[in-house]
């Protein structure tokens, strides 16, 4: 290790030496000049003046003047927002006046496209540019949310949990496993951008096709999102403040559509369920007054006593240290019952503040920012508190020929720990808001939490848990994170046309989490459990080391840029956790693990180290601003795959080429005269990328391990001694390699009538050798199944974006932008013995079947066609064992006259037909108004919450009004309410009621008004008198409405952690296990201030 570090150090020195020694020093003189607008002839303040091909530049001052050191022959590039970029070649020492033409298009915008940057008009690949001003309007703690609806081809699914990352797909779901794109933040490659302060972001571009993204090779298969952060600008020092304060409101009403306690008791009698009838000793519809449970030493009460006897109160006893002595009494909730959802979802404040300072001179620039975020979640105990600091600096020496600097930020954040998607399962706090029966009061008669423990006649009230108790107890859970990310870089011009660049960057991440487990005395089953505590720590680090050389030259009409590079990446990590139980006190200021009794030995995990090594090159060539060629090639080596041996070939190395072509038709003579056509570019590309999917570093190997609970055995007899054993832990497959994504892209960009920009693209992405865990029969044993190249996938779609913008007059201007994303996935091949595999867990069968000829993630189950109206009907025709009056009728798909597993079919596609975003902006004098809409059309949601709420046969808990109002009522084997759509209340039948079927599938289409913002900019003339450059204040509403037919909380559903390994696992999605809603209204008041 030390040796290789030394070697790397030496190499770095060599490179640096060679940069410095190769400098070509030429004479420079200082030029001054002025920039004016061609329309009003007024000075342009803050225009960028840059020497072409370098980062050397300045900005014009308040009079439009600038001064810069240039050599004769240098080209100055002058740009300012709203004006076309102009290039001026410096001749001698003259004073230069540069007149900028107002621009109706942004063709000259420089776009960061990975290792290089290009003018928008020179781009031949598919690159979506996010309008950062629009994107930033949505208050968020996770910057990925900025992408939603802002770029065509990008599908973003957000969670409402503060700080939770989003699920991002570029051009459809590209695989069964991880489908998160690669994020490149100031040149540092990383897995997400959630921690970047939105106020620090300068630009976001999305590299969608191979022409743009293939330069990232095996890391770029899911698309690439390139983020740059703001840099200081030479000139005046500015300080700005951006902040808002607001409030967020929970969803209102009976969100789960639950019946009240009285209705629930009537249902028990309708079902004839003696055990449940016993909960209502007064009969159907009569709610007992008190419930109790406790030691036998206390007199017990008959049914009548429980209904009315206040004597029971005198026996109330709560013993925190010995729950065995408890005698708990609670008074039941009547009327509507306890609205559990609103015991834990509350209106909450939120705030975010960023102070940014920047400035510099032509030798150095700096930008620093300090950010503070405090967002309370509407769900009690969820919050995200962040303190962030960023420092970006640039220095230049040796007459600007050598430049170096850094970009970096540190984040310290706190939250409640572990809820990045964990609300999406049946055991979560949110799930308990429908699983806890409404008859249970929030508190018992002694002021302690109510729960299932003290039921009528001591019987349990279901196996739900008090969500309010869980939420309050969770307040003492804490997760602290320290996260550092950034890079340092050095850059040198070499000879006239070469620039050498080296950058070393990466991330350091440390998480510490502790959790106190309180005795759940309010639960029936775990009433006596001891308290507990656990702690864990995680440490991760990784680095990217990137070295590039760029050759750039213009001769005649030829414009050429060649990039060559070498890159390596490596990551390491460790994880540690320990727990104990039985603490004397759970005071968070007291608990240390050694004060309790350990139950399990502490565990530590070495996170598999990974490394990648790459060589890459790119060519960009433009002829006469008309014909554009881009080509790239990258060779990657990945440590995750088998390095090869005598009999098996090396699987680590892969090569990824791409080529793209563009033709700016509008530059041709035959179109020069067409005045309405401002610009038209046709382009196409083809290339290959790769992805290493969910392959872990042990994937190639069959390995063994042990665990006290999985391989140890008491072979000596006795009650307390065990002997170590081993088991096969992983089944290896050394023949696995990366998946290849072949992307074809054609499209055009046009600007017409000076007001209208449109871009349309069609793409096809073929994924060969898709990586996913192999579906194997259990006959192979219990080792973890390997990830293999399971099959091929094809995605096709259209990306459409258009903007109409107009300045109607001096006072009024507006723009309207929209983008539409369509994709169609199709699994074209699976290599296993079956042409499908099932995933998406439930209490019944798997919900999802990924099958050849179908899109990823399609729901699979029985097709409900009605309800059997009589026992006789249920016994004839295509039927199944246990079918009765009031059971579901299923479609006999294979027509064999009986209903069995072979009649399951595809019952819904969670992939939208299209998603769309609409951005509307208008300004009138000093007022500005903007709105952002986002929608998804044609996707189906699987409302798994109904498993718990709609069927009597599933666990006791909150039950839906649908079961009460639309449930079949069976008398003497005949349904007496023929319009019923929900199976009869019956208690032992999965088939016919809660089995996975089309009953759960709902239309998940929606349109959300994500933002409406009204702002006012104060008169700069007035402000200057008090030293302020700019002051903008606004009021904003978020999620003002959601239009949908979906009956759950929110049709926008993040993938569940219950599905396999993590948030990005996409083999199953669109399943609602009770997700944290992301359609809650927010109102904020914000300020942007610069001085």
């Amino acid at each position: 290790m030390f040796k290789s570090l030394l070697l790397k150090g030496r190499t770095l020195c060599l490179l640096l030496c060679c940069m410095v020694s190769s400098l070509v020093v030429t004479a420079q003189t200082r030029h001054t000049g002025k920039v004016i607008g061609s329309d009003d002839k007024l000075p342009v303040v803050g225009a960028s003046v840059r020497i072409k091909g370098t980062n050397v530049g300045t900005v014009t001052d308040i009079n439009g003047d600038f001064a810069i050191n240039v050599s004769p022959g240098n080209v100055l590039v002058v740009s300012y927002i709203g004006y076309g970029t102009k290039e001026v070649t410096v001749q001698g020492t003259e004073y230069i006046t540069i007149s900028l033409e107002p621009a109706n298009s942004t063709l000259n915008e420089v776009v960061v496209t990975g290792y290089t940057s290009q003018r928008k008009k020179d781009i031949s690949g598919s690159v979506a540019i996010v309008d950062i001003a629009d994107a930033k309007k949505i208050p968020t703690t996770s910057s990925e949310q900025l992408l939603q609806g802002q770029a065509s081809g990008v599908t973003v699914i957000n969670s409402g949990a503060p700080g939770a990352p989003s699920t991002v797909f570029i051009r459809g779901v590209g695989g069964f496993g991880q489908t998160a794109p690669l994020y490149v933040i100031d040149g540092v490659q990383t897995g997400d951008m959630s921690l970047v302060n939105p106020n620090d972001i300068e630009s976001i571009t999305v590299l969608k096709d191979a022409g743009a993204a293939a330069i990232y090779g095996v890391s770029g298969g899911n698309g690439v999102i390139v983020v740059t952060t703001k840099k200081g600008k030479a000139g005046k020092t500015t300080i700005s403040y951006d902040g808002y304060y607001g409030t967020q409101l929970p969803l209102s009403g009976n969100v789960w559509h639950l019946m009240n306690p009285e209705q629930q008791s009537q249902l028990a009698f309708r079902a004839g369920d003696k055990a449940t009838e016993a909960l209502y000793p007064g009969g159907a519809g009569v709610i007992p007054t008190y419930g109790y449970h406790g030691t036998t030493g206390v007199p017990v009460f008959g049914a009548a006593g429980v209904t009315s006897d206040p004597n029971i109160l005198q026996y109330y006893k709560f013993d925190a240290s010995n729950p065995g002595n408890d005698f708990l009494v609670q008074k039941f909730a009547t009327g509507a019952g306890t609205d559990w959802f609103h015991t834990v979802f509350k209106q909450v404040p939120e705030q975010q503040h960023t102070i940014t300072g920047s400035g510099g001179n032509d030798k150095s620039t700096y930008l620093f920012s300090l950010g503070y975020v405090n967002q309370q979640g509407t769900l009690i105990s969820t919050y995200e508190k962040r303190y962030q600091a960023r420092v970006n600096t640039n220095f230049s020496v040796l007459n600007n020929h050598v430049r170096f600097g850094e970009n970096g930020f540190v984040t310290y954040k706190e939250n409640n720990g572990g809820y990045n998607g964990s609300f999406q399962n049946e055991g979560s706090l949110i799930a308990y808001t429908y699983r806890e029966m409404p008859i249970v009061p929030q508190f018992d008669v002694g002021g302690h939490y109510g729960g299932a423990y003290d039921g009528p006649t001591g019987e349990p009230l279901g196996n739900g848990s008090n969500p309010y108790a869980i939420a309050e107890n969770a307040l003492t859970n804490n997760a602290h994170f320290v996260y550092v990310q950034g890079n340092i870089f050095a850059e040198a011009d070499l000879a006239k046309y070469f620039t050498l660049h080296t950058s070393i960057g990466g991330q350091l991440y440390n998480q510490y989490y502790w959790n106190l487990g309180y005795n759940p005395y309010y639960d029936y089953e775990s009433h006596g459990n001891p308290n507990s505590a656990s702690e864990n720590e995680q440490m991760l680090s990784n680095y990217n080391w990137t070295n590039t050389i760029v050759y750039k030259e213009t001769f005649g009409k030829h414009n050429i840029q060649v990039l060559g590079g070498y890159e390596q990446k490596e990551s390491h990590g460790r994880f540690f956790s320990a727990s104990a139980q039985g603490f004397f006190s759970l005071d968070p200021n007291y608990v240390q693990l050694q004060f309790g009794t350990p139950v399990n030995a502490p565990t530590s995990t070495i996170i598999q180290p990974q490394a990648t090594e790459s060589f890459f090159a790119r060519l960009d060539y433009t002829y006469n601003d008309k014909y554009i060629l881009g080509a790239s090639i990258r060779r990657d080596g990945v440590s995750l795959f088998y390095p090869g041996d005598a009999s098996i070939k090396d699987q680590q190395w892969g090569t990824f080429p791409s080529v793209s072509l563009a033709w700016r038709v509008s530059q041709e003579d035959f179109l020069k005269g067409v005045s309405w056509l401002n610009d038209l570019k046709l382009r196409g590309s083809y290339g290959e990328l790769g992805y290493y999917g969910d392959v872990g570093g042990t994937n190639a190997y069959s390995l063994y391990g042990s665990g006290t609970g999985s391989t140890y055995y008491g072979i000596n007899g006795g009650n307390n001694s065990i002997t170590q054993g081993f088991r096969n832990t992983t089944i290896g497959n050394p023949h696995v390699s990366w998946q290849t994504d072949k992307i074809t892209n054609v499209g055009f960009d046009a600007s017409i009538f000076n007001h209208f920009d449109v871009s349309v693209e069609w793409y096809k992405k073929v994924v060969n050798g898709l990586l996913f865990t192999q579906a194997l029969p259990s006959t192979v044993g219990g080792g973890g199944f390997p990830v293999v190249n399971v099959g091929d996938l094809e995605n096709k779609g259209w990306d459409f974006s258009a903007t109409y913008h107009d300045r109607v007059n001096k006072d009024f201007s507006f723009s309207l932008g929209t983008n539409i994303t369509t994709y169609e996935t199709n699994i074209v091949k699976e290599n296993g013995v079956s042409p499908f595999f099932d995933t998406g867990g439930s209490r019944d069968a798997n919900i999802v079947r990924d099958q050849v000829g179908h899109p990823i993630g399609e729901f699979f189950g029985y097709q409900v066609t009605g309800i059997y109206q009589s026992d006789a009907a249920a016994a004839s025709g295509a039927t199944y064992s246990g079918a009765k009056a009031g059971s579901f009728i299923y479609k006999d798909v294979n027509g064999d006259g009986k209903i069995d597993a072979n009649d399951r079919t595809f019952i819904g596609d969670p992939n939208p037909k299209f998603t769309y975003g609409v951005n509307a902006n208008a300004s009138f004098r000093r007022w500005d108004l903007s709105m952002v809409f986002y929608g998804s059309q044609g996707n189906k949601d699987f409302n798994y919450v109904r498993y718990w709420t709609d069927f009597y046969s599933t666990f006791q808990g909150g039950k839906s009004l649908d079961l009460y109002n639309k449930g079949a009522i069976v008398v003497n084997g005949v349904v007496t309410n023929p319009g019923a759509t929900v199976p009869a209340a019956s208690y032992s039948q999965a088939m016919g009621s809660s089995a996975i079927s089309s009953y759960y599938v709902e239309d998940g289409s929606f349109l959300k008004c994500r933002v409406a913002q009204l702002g006012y900019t104060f008169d700069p003339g007035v402000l200057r008198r008090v030293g302020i450059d700019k002051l903008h204040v606004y009021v904003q509403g978020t999620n003002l409405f959601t239009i949908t037919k979906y009956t759950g909380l929110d049709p926008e559903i993040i993938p569940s952690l219950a599905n396999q390994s993590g948030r990005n696992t996409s083999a199953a999605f669109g399943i609602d296990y009770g997700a944290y809603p992301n359609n809650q209204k927010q109102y904020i008041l914000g300020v942007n201030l610069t001085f």
Partner: protein
Amino acid sequence: MKKYSKFIALGSLAVLTLTYSCKKLLNKVPVGNLSAGVLANKAGLDGLLIGAYSMLDGASTNYGTSWETSIDNWVYGGIASDDAYKGSNTTDQPTAAPIENHSLDPQNEFINEKWVFNMQAIQRANDVIREVPLIKDGSVSAAYGAEAIAEARFLRGVYHMELAKMYRNVPYVDESVTYGAGNYNVPNPGPIWDKIEADFTAAMNGLPTTQSQIGRANKYAAEALLAKAYMFDHKYTTALPLLTDLITNGVTSSGAKYALGPYENNFNAATKNGPEAVFNVQMTVQDGSGGNNGNLGADLNFPAGPYTSCCGFYQPSITLGNAFEVDANGLPKFQRDANGVAASDKTPLPTDHGYILASNGNYTLGGSTSGTPFTPPSQALDPRIDWTLGRYGIPYLDWGLCGGEQWSRGDITPYNPIKNVFYHSQQASTADNAAGWATNQATANSYNLVRFADVILWRAECYVESSQLALAQADVNTVRARMQNTAYWVHTYVDNSAPSKGFTSTPAANYQIGLYGAVAGTDFVTMGQAAAREAVYTERQLELGMEGHRFFDLQRYDGLYGGPAGSGYMAKVLNGYMATDDALLGGNPVLHGHTFTAGKNELYPIPQPQIDIEAGKLKQNPGY
């Protein structure tokens, strides 16, 4: 170009240096695991064998839900038969209900978990067999290697038998089946009893008669399991000499001669692994595993009484309670009518079902204080009843007088499980404080996979089938005679309010147990073969009640797959049970309205997920 030559030279050097250094960069060895090579020695082999043993308890943190995979088969052998109800609330564990009432469909999660768990266990045993030839360091002698293989084949036989009992038509997975070989889509063309018998035969021939560690299988354990396989295979004449050898010569792994001691010792962690333990599954607690090596299969099966509130599953049936009634001769009322209903069900044992504990401390029917307080019945009962089920007013180990229905969750059945429950006084050493659903649910009570009484009663079956009825009677009487020892009965507490003070010598109820043939007309020869057969079956029901065997015994008896009791026997018995239960209990909500379908419900369906994954290689069982 010349002026760049220096750069090019330096650049090339840099690239070369990098290429060299990065050869190592991509070489990342797998972390946190052992490679197969590390295990290729004696310690590794021993460890793999322990790993294969560790699946016996039917619970692993690696896979499965303990009560769905458990070897005690309380779900598959217990609640699916006339032994017990699922228990708890009617809608708790909703996927267990269709198993209880025979409306199971092949997608049920329970049956898939049971299947997968045992397949994993089989491959652990195969890992041992595959490892032996890889050991080249001389640490393992040929004899030691052969013994390890014999032990592994014993385990492989046990795990296959678990599957064969459930599904009958299962793939046989030997050591040649591996991922690497690609031959893992093993079909299920039919029963595999011959293969299981071959494994046990090899184990029997390769294992010593005693072992240094009591948890290991010895020759006799293998012989007993072989006999069990023959019983399932209906090869009574082949089984008979094995059973006789076991009864005559059999010793436990520690060398103790097989014998019938105190009945309750089989269900008490402090007295486990006694002379009756032909093969026991070892359970341990407080061993650093957080309870994970305890008897987790039964972790839901504690009464929802005053000392625990979780979880009230596996409640003994009314029919099982009735079966313990004895006639004037102390013999069971075992005769079945044409509908399969046992005579004992015709005169049901009074229970506290329907009585409610009133504020005056009395149990009264229907909750009205004017009713008659419930008192435990005084009629004569087989003494095994109160070691098999918790009954109102009878000492429940040392926890106090059982609360009957008030201790059952859901309050619809009067009995509570007891064989898996630990003594209060032994809680500190035989239960684990780790929290499952509740604390102390992991216990050190071992599971008796085969106990000596089992062996004796199998021989009785064999004798019945070979028409040696007197010999059959003698074996049945051996088992019954043990319970004539009043010291082995449940006795009253010295002080009902302080159970820890111990027991008197007064029987807790009117226990009587007689021997067949003691009174004229009650001997097997007089009764004839059919009645003798029924008497043996009933003896197994009583002796082994609540031990997870009943469903599989009924399946074995049924003529459908070659059993001697006539085709449809199982359906008749279970439909008779459900009809009786409906009448006696006023309709158990889970059973009500359901029937057992002959020709279908004798077997569990092959799990649909496995059929799906094996793409046509697995054939579904008839009727599903």
